[in-house]
Every structure is written in structure tokens, then in C-alpha cells.
């Protein structure tokens, strides 16, 4: 792979967070019994006509502005014609040569420095229905027949196309994370990859280092998590690199990422190339967004993740790493700030969130919105540590119990009787016992082996089932060892 440069461009589809669908008033939310959220319009019944959802236009403008795009003063919708059973009209209404937003960018703060990824276009279109392939394996090729559910058909979609500015799978993943966080902050999309409200395809090619020309690309589809995106790109780059190194050629094709086997495989090629026969949608009229509309949307833009990141560093003194991780998701950052507002020391709150809380979310594969505790409860727990009521170590088990039950730290501490022992008399009793039982360690300590002290502290902690105040034990232990000597 030496001497070759990786070139990646992304094409992202995000479902917009509207109440109703793009061109009809059906409920646009995820789920529902199959075909229970449809009407004549989104089922493409004969005679129906589309009427554009104002909110979808507003949300699209919001994102386009946040991505520094120019908003087209005049844009129209086209019909993209192709047959597929999940598409009720056998054409998709989509913006084609006059999209809503053009020419923006998104900056990524990477270890290698700032990477600017150009945004070619941001446009509006409608989603398709969902096909369920009925077969035992669930694979398309094996299925006897397929099932169609049109609940999703007509949900507003934003398509975001990047310039081929991405050079590594990590950058691609970072781009998606940042974009997701931006869309969350803008309240433009739910961005749930597992529910398909955020989807991403990638164009991957290799070229000689420094070459201005693009190599032959493969389009990789079906990457439905950040991890899948990373793995698929990593694989695809290897595949193309090996192919070129052995004197082969990359074929322009669409490839399917299979997470189970960890490879991309070509989708069956079509007999003919795609010929979408785009033409202006005669049932819709042009959009001519005036400056006051655009300025209004601009004025209403909330704080973006990058701004928030700086604020967390500057105002709350968080390290760059912490600020970056916390703002990778709006929910995470909101939780964090609420905990700080409730009195938690910022770095302590950040540590708990990036450590125990994140581990819990990962282990249970849940979102932060699904944990039963509030930011204020986290703050209260941190306060118990600060006051010396519990030790940092005990706090871990307390926090675990909080996440399991949703109870306050104080309640758990009381119930389990696990308050920290700071009573000197009681501690001295345990310390003397430990000294008596471990003469060898006492000897070692006196010979100057500091490590022996740690062992003795550990013994005291064991005797108190971890409830002893470790600083105090340390101090008292040293005092008794030295006092005796």
C-alpha cells in the first residue's frame, strides 16, 4: 500500500425529525404495525398528489447552514425513476440539479491536525418503504418472496454528500460522529443507525500519492454502525490495495458489507447501467426561500458541538479529550452539563461519565436516555465522596447499584450500611490487628520498603470490607508503625 493514497467520500441519509411525512400527514415516527401509517399519498394510490412539509424544509436549511452551505435561492424537486417494490410510485421525489444546500464543509479535529471535509450538497428527498426478505436465512438471494411495509415510505430524508476529502477510516468515523452530534444538537434527526434513521454509504478508491486524478471507486453499502463503517472501510482499503499490488484492477461496482464475515462482496451487477430519467416533479412547485427565512433559521441555530467543546474546555476547564468525547453525543453532553449545574465538580463528573457510565451503556447496549438516574443523582453521589461519606472505591459499587435501581446514592449507602468508617478508634483497632498478624510486613516497612505499607492498608480495608477511609488508614497506620519504632 506504500505510495497509495486512500480517497473516501460519504453519502449520508438522515431521516428528519418531523411529526408528519414529507408529502402527507401520516405519522412519521419509527415503528407501528406494518402498513398502519399510510394514506393514499404515501401508498402512491392512483390520483394522489404530494404537498411539501414546511418543517422538513426548515430542518434541511438548519443543517445546511450549520455545515456552512450556501442556501439555494431557487430549488426544485425532481422525479428519480426506477422500479423497486418498496417505492410506492416507482419514482422517488428528490432534489437533483438544484439542491437546497451546496458547497459547505465540516472540520474534524484529528490527531494529525484539522481535517476539512467538503460538503458537496445537502438535499431533501423522501424515504422508501421497508422490504423484509422472507427466508430462513433472511438473505435476499435465498428468499422465496418478500414483504413490503410502507410505514417508512415518505418520511423526509436529508441526503448529505461529501467531497472525496476523507483519507482514513478513522476520519470517516469521526466525520459521522461529528455529523451525528451536529444533527442531534440541531434537533434535525434522531440519528439512530440501528433504526435506520441515519445511514451511510461510502465511495472508496486508491490513487498514487500526490495524483490529482481519482482512482476507480467501489461504493460500499450496508454499514449500520460506526464500527461497521470503520471495519468495512478498513477491509475495502486492504482489498483494493492487495488487488492493485498484485497487478489487478479495481472494478467500479457497489459492494455490500457483511458484518458477520467481515468482508465486502459485490452486489449482483445490473444488466444495464442506472438510467433514472430525472425530470422536474410536475406535481410540486419551486422553492424560493427568501433571505428573511434563511436569516430566521440562521438566527435560531443552537450552539453546535464544536462551540460547546470549546466552552467546556474554556469555562469548565475540561481537557480537550474529555470535551471531545462528551460532545460526541448531545444527550451525553446535556447529561454532563446538568450534573455540573447540580453542583458536580466538572472533571469528576466527566470521569464518572466517561468511565463507569460509558462502560455501563456499552455493556447493556443502551442510550444514556435509558439509564434510570438523573444528572442530579450523579452530582449528589460525587458530593458524598467529597464529603468523605463514601470512598471512591465504594462509590463504584454504589453507582452500579444506582444504575440498576435508579435509587439515590444516599439511600443505597444507608440501606447497605456502607458509609465510610472515619472513626479513628475503630480504625486503630483494625490497624493493630493487622500489625499483629503481619510481623514480616511490619519488618519490611521498617527496613524502608514503602510497598509494605500498601499491603497493610489493604489488610485494613479487607477487615472493614472496604469501608475504611483510606487516607485516614494510611495516616494512622504510619503513625502507629512509627510510634512503635
Amino acid at each position, binding site marked *: 500500500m506504500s505510495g497509495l493514497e486512500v480517497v473516501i467520500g460519504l453519502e449520508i441519509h438522515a431521516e428528519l425529525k418531523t411529526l408528519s411525512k414529507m408529502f402527507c400527514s401520516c405519522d412519521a415516527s419509527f415503528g407501528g404495525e406494518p402498513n398502519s401509517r399510510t394514506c393514499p399519498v404515501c*401508498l402512491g394510490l*392512483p390520483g394522489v*398528489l404530494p404537498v411539501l412539509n414546511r418543517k422538513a424544509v426548515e430542518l434541511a436549511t438548519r443543517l445546511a447552514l450549520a455545515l456552512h452551505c450556501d442556501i439555494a435561492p431557487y430549488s426544485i424537486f425532481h422525479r428519480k425513476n426506477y422500479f423497486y417494490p418498496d417505492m*410506492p410510485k416507482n419514482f422517488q421525489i428528490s432534489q437533483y440539479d438544484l439542491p437546497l444546500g451546496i458547497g459547505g464543509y465540516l472540520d474534524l479535529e484529528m490527531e494529525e491536525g484539522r481535517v476539512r471535509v467538503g460538503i458537496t450538497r445537502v438535499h431533501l428527498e423522501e424515504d422508501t418503504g421497508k422490504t423484509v426478505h422472507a427466508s430462513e436465512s433472511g438473505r435476499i438471494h435465498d428468499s422465496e418472496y418478500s414483504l413490503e411495509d410502507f410505514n417508512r415510505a415518505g418520511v423526509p430524508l436529508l441526503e448529505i454528500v461529501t467531497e472525496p476529502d476523507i483519507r482514513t477510516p478513522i476520519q470517516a468515523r469521526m466525520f459521522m460522529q461529528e455529523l451525528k452530534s451536529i444533527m442531534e444538537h440541531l434537533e434535525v434527526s434522531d440519528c439512530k443507525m440501528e433504526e435506520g434513521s441515519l445511514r451511510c454509504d461510502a465511495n472508496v478508491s486508491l490513487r498514487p500519492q500526490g495524483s490529482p486524478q481519482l482512482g476507480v471507486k467501489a461504493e460500499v453499502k450496508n454499514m449500520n454502525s460506526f464500527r461497521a463503517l470503520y471495519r468495512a472501510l478498513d477491509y475495502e482499503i486492504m482489498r483494493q490495495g492487495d488487488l492493485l499490488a498484485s497487478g489487478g484492477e479495481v472494478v467500479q461496482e457497489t459492494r455490500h458489507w457483511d458484518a458477520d464475515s467481515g468482508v465486502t462482496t459485490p452486489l449482483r451487477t445490473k444488466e444495464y447501467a442506472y438510467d433514472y430519467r430525472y425530470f422536474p416533479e410536475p406535481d410540486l412547485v419551486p422553492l424560493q426561500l427568501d433571505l428573511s427565512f434563511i436569516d430566521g433559521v440562521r438566527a435560531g441555530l443552537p450552539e453546535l458541538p464544536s462551540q460547546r467543546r470549546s466552552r467546556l474546555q474554556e469555562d469548565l476547564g475540561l481537557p480537550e479529550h474529555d470535551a471531545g468525547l462528551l460532545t460526541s453525543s448531545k444527550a451525553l453532553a446535556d447529561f454532563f452539563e446538568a450534573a455540573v449545574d447540580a453542583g458536580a465538580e466538572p472533571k469528576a463528573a466527566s470521569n464518572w461519565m466517561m468511565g463507569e457510565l460509558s462502560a455501563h451503556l456499552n455493556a447493556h447496549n443502551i442510550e444514556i436516555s435509558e439509564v434510570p438516574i438523573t444528572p442530579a443523582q450523579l452530582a449528589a453521589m460525587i458530593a458524598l465522596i467529597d464529603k468523605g461519606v463514601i470512598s471512591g472505591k465504594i462509590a463504584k459499587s454504589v453507582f452500579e447499584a444506582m444504575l440498576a435501581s435508579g435509587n439515590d446514592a444516599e439511600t443505597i449507602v444507608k440501606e447497605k450500611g456502607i458509609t465510610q468508617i472515619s472513626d479513628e478508634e475503630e480504625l486503630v483497632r483494625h490497624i493493630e490487628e493487622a500489625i499483629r498478624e503481619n510481623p514480616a510486613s511490619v519488618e519490611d516497612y521498617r527496613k524502608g520498603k514503602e510497598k509494605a505499607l500498601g499491603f497493610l492498608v489493604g489488610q485494613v480495608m479487607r477487615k472493614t470490607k472496604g469501608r475504611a477511609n483510606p487516607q485516614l488508614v494510611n495516616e494512622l497506620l504510619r503513625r502507629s508503625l512509627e510510634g512503635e519504632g
Partner: protein
Amino acid sequence: MEALYAMKAWELQDMIDRGEVSVSEVLDAVLARLEQVENEVHSYITLTLDAARAAAAEADRARDGGKSPGAAAGIPMAIKDVLCTRGIRTTCGSRILEEYIPVYDATVLERLRHAGLVLVGKANMDEFAMGSSTENSAYGPTRNPWDLERVPGGSSGGSAAAVAAGEAIWALGSDTGGSIRQPASFCGLVGMKPTYGLVSRYGLVAFASSLDQVGPIARDVRDCALLLSLIAGHDRRDSTSLRLEPPDYLSAMQGDIRGLRVGMPRELMQEGLTPGVRKAMEDCLQKFEQLGAEVDEATLPNLDYALSAYYIIAPAEASSNLARFDGVRYGLRVEGAEDMMEMYGRTRAAGFGPEVKRRIMLGTYALSAGYYEAYYGQAQKVRTLIIRDFDAAYEKYDILVSPTTPTPAFALGEKVEDPLAMYLSDVCTIPVNLAGIPAISIPCGLEDGLPVGLQIMGKVLDETTVLRAARVMEEALAFREKPGSGKGVGA
């Protein structure tokens, strides 16, 4: 007194209001006539007689209860089978929708139901409104009540024939390139295509979305205005619907035409006109002058390109609009296919007739890679030129007039195998759809016992002037002929 089934809607309404006749009696008269002639004429694809009787009885009960029935109550009506009717089969003249029952009503149907609609049935038509003779119906052709060996015109041929034969008092049609005006002309009736956007297209099964418009077919201009008032107006379900409150056309169209500036585009008086049509036009122009209008020859230089542009634009839009008929969610499916691709190909081959296939192919070709700019793109630019021509003409004239068709009704089978010849019969009506303007056809004479139509075209949204000129001319022309002599259906 004239038979009830042969009377105008406004005459019947007057009689019903005065209590001289009941709605049910009017309906019975129409149904008796239908019984007599439908076998020969074949105006309908689906009859809704029970529902019609129930609606009539309901209207009579309302009247007896002191309530005034709606403006459409008591007027048995035919609706072109391209408009969706909830719970009533809507075939569009196609095999592919043979058993299709819509779950919703077209907006115009909703409006008419509020006005007390008495629906006799769904009228025959060229499949998906593609044709000029109603011979392209999967359910067999409709015959012209004036001469059963001739076509009634199309694509709203069933609607026109039903009204001409006395099987309905008035009807709705749809007009994409002349499909209301041409059959109205062939059947000696008044037919109007309103300004694009005046009448909602919601529930009108689309042929060519940027050209389609629903409009009335009636026995005189007054009925036409009355029916237009019932269906016109803004509909928020149609993005191309104009936001305005239409006037009451009946009162707005009163007055004379003194000083009205009438232009006659010379491009529409060129070759292909039969002597009778030419003669009728000349008589019309004389009448206009006698009535105080100023008549002059006008020119619309780009009109020569209109037919070509239309036969690119309309099939292109149609090819996309008709893609939804695929055997997945509704309509015909040919079973036994191995996979989706085979199912699509076989279903659509079995479900569509030759003309529809021809236009789907033509439209798909015109939009396909490498041809878009040369065909569709260029046709849309031609459309701009044609609109400019009309704009320029309307600086000088209040209305433009022409024959509705170059010839009277042609014989059944005459043009079936020659699509180009069939397309040419719409040469006078097509420019109107491209420009989106309103136009009406009124009967203005006979040639060999067949009606000839005068087309009056107006400015955008100037239905009022079009109707006024039509009403004044109708009175002056005093066209009283009825089908029934000789080759037609007996009176």
C-alpha cells in the same frame, strides 16, 4: 314539452324548485333512456344505479323536509372513470385497474357529493385518457350518438356520449390535450377546460400532470358555468391548485360582447380543415362582428411546434405517472412469475393496451440518458415560446377563436392503426394545455349531419370572458340540432 332526460340542468332545477317534478322522476327518465340506448352507445364502464336512486330519494326527502337540496341534486351525472370514487370501481379504461376500488374520493367528487350528486355511473374513456376516440378503452369503444358508426371523440368520449344520448344531464371529463373539448365538439355539446390549477387534480388519475385539468361537459353554456362553479376552487391537497375564490360564473358571465377583441390565430386555420368546418368558422366570425366584437387575424408563430412538444411532454410525464401500476399494491398482477422483474414485465404487458404502451415507450425514450435535452428539455423550452406567443396575442385580443377540431367526428377504426393521424386531430386544442389557459368548445354548425365545434380561448383565469363570449355566441348561433336523425340514436 321536451323529454326530461333531454333537458338542461338549470331547466330541471327550476322545475324541481317549483315542485313540478321530483328528483326521482328526473332520474327515472334518464335511467329509462339509458335502458333504451346504452347497448348501442356504451357510454359507461360502471353503472351506479342503486346509489343514484338512493341519492335521488334522499334529495326528495330533503326537499319535502323543507331543506333545499344542493346545486347538483336532481341532475343525473356521468363521471369520467379517471376520477377516483370511494367504494366505486375506478378503471381508467384499463385492464390493469379492472377490479380497483379506491379508498378515497377525488376532491371534485367530494365537492359534488356536498352539492347532492346523483351519480349514474363512471363513463367510458380512452385508457388512462390517452386517445382521441375512446376506442382505446379496454372495455370496448363508445359510439357517437349522432352517428353510431363514428367515434364520440376522446378521451372523455363516454362522458360526452352519455350527455348527448340522454344518459346523463351533464358530466365531468378531463382534458390533457383536448380530451373534453374534442368529444364535446364531436357530440354537439359544450365542454370546457379551465385554467390549469383552477380545479383540483387530487383524485384525478394522472396522465400528464402539468397538462391535466378536470372540467365540465354540458348541454349549454349556462350548465357549463354552473358545473364549473361547483368544482372550481383552491384545494390544499394539490400543490398546483391556485389560491383564489372563484367568482360565481353564472352571474359573472352576463353581458354582451360589444367591443370584445377577437383574434383568430391563422396557424389554426391551416390545412386539414374540412370545408364544413371552414364554413362554420367563417359564419362564427361574421356573427362575432354582428354582435359588435372586433375580429382580426392573430398569429402564434410557434404553434407549429406545439403538437411535437406535446407528444414529448405528455408521454414523458405519463411514463413516470404510470410506473405505479406494477402489481404490488393494487390492480392487476400476473401470477406465476419467478421474481419481481418478471412480475413487473408480465403484469404491465398484460394490463396496458397498445396506445398506453406506445406512450410509455415514447416517454421513457424521451427521458432516457442522452435524449433528455434533445427531447424533453427542448419541448419545455418550446412550451415557453408558446406561452410567450399567447401572452403577446392577449395584449391585442381578449379572446382567441378557432375550430375545436379540424374535422367532425371520424369513423370508428379509421385512425386506430395510425397514431400520428390520431394525434393530429388534437392540433387545435393542444396549445391551450401547454399554455395552461382556459378554453371552451360550443357547437357552431353541422357538416354532413355531424356537429362542428367553435373553440374560444381566454387569458389565464379569465373564464368569465370565455363563458360570456360563448353564451352570447350560443344565443346568436341558435344551434338546436339534436342527435337522433338517421344514423344516430332515436330521440
